[in-house]
């Protein structure tokens, strides 16, 4: 992380307010994009705002590397009365990931929108996208539990509308978005109820303050119930098995730019918050937290990795295959967290980063291949390797990482998970990862078979190569899947810094 500090050169006046500008930039951009005169303007605002967010995230990361934790009092009001933003190693890692994926998706959306969303909705699409970006960035930078709920809902409300915009291609996006809205709102409300219980027990909403006051309250039934509510609510948002029912529809029918963005960031932000509650606000060695991690989270995560990979292996719609695979991969990440050790959490975070990159790239690639034709099922992609070689090359790199081929980022993060599990003598985790990887081999090779080996049906609409504006962000993401597999020093530093920050409060 230290190396970022030297990368970054912003005026100190900006740097001092970087934590809040990180959120405010996209938020102001959202308003500007909604008022923009045309779709081109809105797109430029979206790109500018998301690149600004990357810049600010880099600045914050540099500060975190220097100081350990960056505290920012919004409006100058100190906590507990005021709302504080508090970015530590984990928050900085997440902010970097989210803003980077956001910038890639913003670039990508320029062309993909033309094919997928009605023209007069483009400005509103960009506004919704920036709202969602601002919400997610706020979520990972806030130090206040209720504020986290507000940011969670800012991002979610944007997301519901964005998924519904997929209706131009497939009207099934509408019921999918509605379903997502219902499940997401129930999840958020559970979260609020849980925070309410904790507030009732501690009288504070500031996360750091809450952690201190909760420490002697471990036996309180209200606190335990609050944790359970928060856990279930965030489980719904993170698509934790078996609360993932909304995900295949929302990812399957939403516009591809949004699917790529959500799969890479939205569920990850919910996982971030879950980790924040389990490890920083509560302590993992507390009996009920440990019990929940070991006896609820771990089995569910393991079940997700196997069952949803199996569903992916039987699905026929390419986007649904990838969506089910997302639920399975969320299972991997949660397995890492459920180990409850610094090594396990670090491995989980590394897989979080690798999955964000590869699933973002995969959904972008599928979207890029289908700009010209509305291809959905495996047979629609027959012969794609010949018709769209660059797109399929990017798809192949990311899919190799998804399978866990050696020398890819996906292999490395799975390997770290296995190492962390063996250190805890949890051999069943290794078995789960092995079975799930085998199933991943099946569903990925089904997609490869269609793209590389099958000849397209006579007279069927053919997949076309995507323009450079779409290919560039896609190739960057999938290139990183390979690059980080060879030289993983950057993501490993970030994941380690994140895990250490999570456990910092107690050790």
């Amino acid at each position, binding site marked *: 992380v230290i190396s970022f500090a030297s990368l970054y050169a912003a005026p100190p006046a900006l740097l001092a307010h970087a934590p809040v500008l990180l959120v405010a930039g996209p938020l102001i951009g959202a308003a500007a994009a909604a008022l923009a005169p045309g779709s081109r303007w809105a797109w430029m605002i979206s790109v500018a705002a998301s690149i600004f967010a990357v810049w600010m995230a880099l600045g914050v990361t540099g500060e975190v590397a220097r100081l350990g934790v960056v505290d920012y009092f919004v409006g100058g009001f100190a906590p507990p009365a005021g709302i504080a933003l508090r970015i530590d190693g984990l928050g900085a890692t997440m902010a970097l990931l989210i803003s980077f994926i956001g910038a890639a998706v913003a670039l990508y959306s320029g062309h993909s929108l033309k094919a997928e969303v009605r023209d007069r909705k483009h400005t509103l699409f960009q506004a919704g996208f920036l709202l969602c970006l601002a919400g997610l960035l706020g979520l990972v930078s806030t130090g206040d539990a209720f504020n986290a709920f507000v940011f969670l809902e800012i991002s979610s409300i944007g997301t519901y509308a964005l998924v519904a915009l997929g209706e131009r291609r497939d009207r099934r996006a509408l*019921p999918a978005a509605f379903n997502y809205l219902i499940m997401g709102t129930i999840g958020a409300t559970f979260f*609020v109820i849980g925070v309410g219980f904790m507030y009732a027990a501690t009288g504070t909403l500031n996360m750091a303050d809450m952690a201190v006051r909760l420490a002697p309250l471990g036996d309180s039934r209200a606190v335990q119930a609050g944790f359970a509510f928060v856990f279930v609510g965030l489980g719904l948002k993170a698509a934790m098995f078996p609360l993932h029912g909304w995900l295949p529809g929302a990812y399957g029918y939403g516009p591809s730019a949004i699917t790529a963005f959500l799969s890479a960031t939205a569920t990850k932000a919910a996982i971030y918050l879950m980790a924040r509650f389990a490890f920083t606000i509560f302590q993992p060695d507390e009996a009920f937290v440990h019990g929940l991690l070991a006896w609820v989270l771990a089995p569910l995560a393991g079940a997700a990795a196997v069952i949803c990979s199996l569903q992916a292996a039987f699905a026929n719609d390419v986007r649904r295959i990838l969506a089910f695979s997302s639920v399975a991969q969320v299972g991997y990440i949660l397995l890492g967290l459920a180990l409850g050790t610094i090594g396990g959490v670090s491995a989980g975070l590394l897989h979080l980063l690798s999955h964000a990159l590869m699933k973002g790239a995969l959904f972008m690639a599928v979207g890029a291949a289908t700009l010209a034709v509305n291809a959905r*099922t495996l047979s629609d992609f027959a012969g794609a390797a010949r018709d769209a070689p660059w797109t399929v090359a990017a798809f192949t790199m990311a899919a190799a990482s998804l399978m866990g081929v050696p020398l890819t980022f996906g292999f490395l993060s799975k390997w770290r998970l296995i190492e962390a599990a063996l250190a805890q003598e949890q051999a069943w985790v290794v078995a789960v990862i092995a079975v799930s990887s085998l199933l991943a081999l099946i569903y990925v090779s089904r997609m490869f078979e269609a793209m590389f080996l099958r000849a397209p049906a006579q007279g069927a609409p053919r997949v076309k190569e995507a323009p450079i504006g779409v290919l560039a962000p896609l190739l960057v993401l999938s290139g990183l899947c390979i690059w980080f597999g060879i030289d993983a020093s950057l993501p490993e530093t970030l994941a380690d810094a994140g895990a250490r920050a999570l456990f910092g409060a107690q050790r």
Partner: protein
Amino acid sequence: MSFLATHFNYVAVVVLLMSGLYIVFSSGNLIRRMIGLAIFQTSTGLFYITLAKVYGGTAAIIVEPGSETAQRLAAAVDPGYLAQHGVGGVVYSNPLPHVLILTAIVVGVATLAVGLAIAVRVREAYGTIEAEEIAEIDSQITPAREAER
């Protein structure tokens, strides 16, 4: 039983929560599901507000100590209780949860608006807002579309 009687406000919260959730899951009509969701969300508001209520407390607007209003409010509560919980001779309710719920209400209204807007679009696209009928339409059309290719 007396526990329930003294905690009737929490009972009301739980009943509202559960009925809202039940409506969301039992109903196939999209508008009814939104109504259930709104009840579910609003009941958390009641939960927070009920947490904030301090017995004998007035609205959290600072009353001039020693003024006529302050004396009237002080007279309404037990002096020992006042000494323990009062600030400047007046007992106030906790304002923070009220503010939080103001925010949560705004979030809830926005969610409701987006949900209803999507329901309108569903109606335009499918001609119905019954979840079962929508699923049936989708299941009929999908195989036909696949066969076309």
